[in-house]
């Protein structure tokens, strides 16, 4: 595949990895967080950890939109879908996310709810037009990547005066989440996460550009390198982070120059601004309530807002108390350090947010990397 294979070249990867090993100072430990689930997936899928020296480690961040969606909002979506006359349209990866009491959209569908998996917001418009007697609700989730297409659908429905189409908006913002991770007060054990820098979002940055990270980077004195989702992108970004740390710099750099500019996609930003405004606060699964971290539909489009049409009042629901997702999302713990990991919590029956999507830290580690835990346990045992 042209424009894909070039970014998966193993020989080039090993050359960059050799530079990382050569330039990383042996007496220093480097810990970087990849914010996005797309990066987590690439790191696990291509075995990038195996290419890094032992003193350069990656921790997985909260940038998986499915993972951070709180249980209460999924409960809302299920209760919407169970109403007679409602058709709920959703991206497929939300189907299995566990809600309260062991429910999920997949189970609701089996119980008779009209839930349809779509690939595009325009599919939802088509369904609403074809079935005027159904109340068609789009379960909108995602970071800035998917927000423009939701905005587009809302504008289109508005122009077409569609009366049976609404959006249940759960769009969240990236920079406030990065800030929340860095701003976390020390835990009881006094273990504030030590992140030396971030591999910054790929697709999100195509929309918002690199500028929005600058204030966070400057305030917390942490380097950010925006990188693509291909494995070579990630390896190169890690090298760039190592160099910044070595030089004592904390800049926002752009590795993903083939898609990302400093300003981002101004047309997409305009669409978003036209339709959405900041929410005062929004709950993130694993991170808790974060101020100004999500979007809601503006009054001008209130008739297309499912929360208003159906008078939804989200009730917050807690995760399993033994679940360590909060600490894992902040980079304080590794998936294998959670007692639930691989025992009662697995991709087949996820308990916590990090296990629900293939991009979640726990699911990625379970699916691609858990053989390393066995090797690690064996070598620890041998050492003892």
């Amino acid at each position, binding site marked *: 595949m042209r424009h894909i294979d070039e970014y998966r070249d193993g020989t080039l990867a090993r050359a960059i990895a050799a530079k990382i090993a050569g330039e990383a100072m042996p007496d220093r430990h480097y810990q970087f967080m990849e914010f996005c689930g797309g990066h987590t997936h690439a790191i696990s899928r291509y075995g990038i950890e195996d290419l890094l020296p032992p003193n350069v480690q990656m921790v997985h961040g909260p940038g998986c939109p499915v993972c951070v969606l709180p249980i209460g909002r999924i409960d809302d979506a299920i209760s919407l879908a169970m109403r007679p006359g409602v058709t709920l349209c959703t991206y497929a990866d939300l189907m*299995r996310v566990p809600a309260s009491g062991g429910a999920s959209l997949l189970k609701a569908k089996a119980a008779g709810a009209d839930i349809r998996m779509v690939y595009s917001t325009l599919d939802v418009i088509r369904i609403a037009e074809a079935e005027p007697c159904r109340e068609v609700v789009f379960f909108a989730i995602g970071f800035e990547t998917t927000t423009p297409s939701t905005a587009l659908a809302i504008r289109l429905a508005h122009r077409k005066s569609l009366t049976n189409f609404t959006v249940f908006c759960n769009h969240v913002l990236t920079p406030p989440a990065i800030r929340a991770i860095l701003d976390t007060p020390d835990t009881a054990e006094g273990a504030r996460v030590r992140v030396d820098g971030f591999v910054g979002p790929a697709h999100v940055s195509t929309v918002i550009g690199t500028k929005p990270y600058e204030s966070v980077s400057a305030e917390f004195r942490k380097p950010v390198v925006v990188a693509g989702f291909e494995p070579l992108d990630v390896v190169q970004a890690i090298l760039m982070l190592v160099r910044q740390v070595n030089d004592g710099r904390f800049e926002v750099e752009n590795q993903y120059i083939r898609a990302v500019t400093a300003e981002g996609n101004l047309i997409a930003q305009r669409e978003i601004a036209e339709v959405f405004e900041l929410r005062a606060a929004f709950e993130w699964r694993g991170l808790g309530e974060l101020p100004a971290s999500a979007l809601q539909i503006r009054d001008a489009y209130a008739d297309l807002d499912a929360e208003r049409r159906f008078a939804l009042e989200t009730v917050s629901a807690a995760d399993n108390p033994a679940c360590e997702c909060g600490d894992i999302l902040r980079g304080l713990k590794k998936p294998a350090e959670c007692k639930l990991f691989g025992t009662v919590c697995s991709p087949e029956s996820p308990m916590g947010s990090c296990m629900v999507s293939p991009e979640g830290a726990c699911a990625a580690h379970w699916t691609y990397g858990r*053989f390393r835990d066995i090797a690690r346990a064996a070598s620890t045992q041998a050492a003892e």
Partner: protein
Amino acid sequence: MNELRLRPRKLDIRNGRVDLSHGAGGRATAQLVEEIFLRAFDNPLLNRGNDQAAFDVPAGRMVMSTDGYVISPLFFPGGDIGSLAVHGTINDVAMAGARPLHLAASYIIEEGFPLADLQRIANSMASAAREAGVAIVTGDTKVVERGKGDGVFISTTGIGLVPAGLDLSAEFARPGDRVILSGSIGDHGVAVMSKRSNLGFETELLSDSAALHELVAEMVRAAGPSLRVLRDPTRGGLAAALNELAQQSGCGFLIDESAIPVRGEVAAACELLGLDPLNVANEGKLIAIVAPEAAELLLSIMRRHPLGHESALIGQVTHDPQCFVQMTTSFGGGRIVDWLGGEQLPRIC
């Protein structure tokens, strides 16, 4: 009083539809069976018209396998539910190293299903069976009310005969054995997905749906007792098949990503949809586990057969109490190749 002996009017295959009377067991059922199925399958055992087929069996070990086909869409590039129902069951029989002898076919048809489509499916089954040299010798037809099926479901059962002395089974895999794959993966799944209404992307790709028993016969002749296991990686793809074999054998696998053949179109479609070719279904491929000393010979024999000319040595069986299927990625790292939790769902970002 001639009309008492009048035969019913012929089925209007071009415009007609299956209705509940076609499943009621009366004259309409008999007519449907005769004009569509008997005409298509036409063989002496079936033509006797009994509720079962009676035949002599040779001495030796027999195998039997059954499979239900519920594919959507019913017609896809490179095949349809009919050819698939023949190939799939023949392959399940052949994976025991057996020569398939006979097939039985059972249909559950939804009221309102076009007769023209039913005939097209029956004809496709007939030609697939004829090409494979295996007759459909008995069958059954049922009709369910509209909304209680999805067009047509087909279930086929096959029996076959295993050559003397041959016993293929997953528990015979042992560390050091080699793993050979008979060709590119993901062709069937991607060809089918390209025709689903909500995806609809353009591709020239055809399903790999094919009967593998002749390839298997060559392999058995060449490698004989060095052959330990055969498995066709259908639903769940190569990943699911290897994990099943790992669980059954109590061993692990180590495979090499760069050795696994994947067509450019399949790789591109999977990229677009967020799928992994390792999890995508195949209907004309097999995995062979063979003793290391016979691997090269088996590979060369397989490559000489049209259904195996892209065969590749993709890895080996390992000692692993965890039964992990591990893979060296083409990027140079290592990872697990796991089962899917449920259906493979596209990612959104």
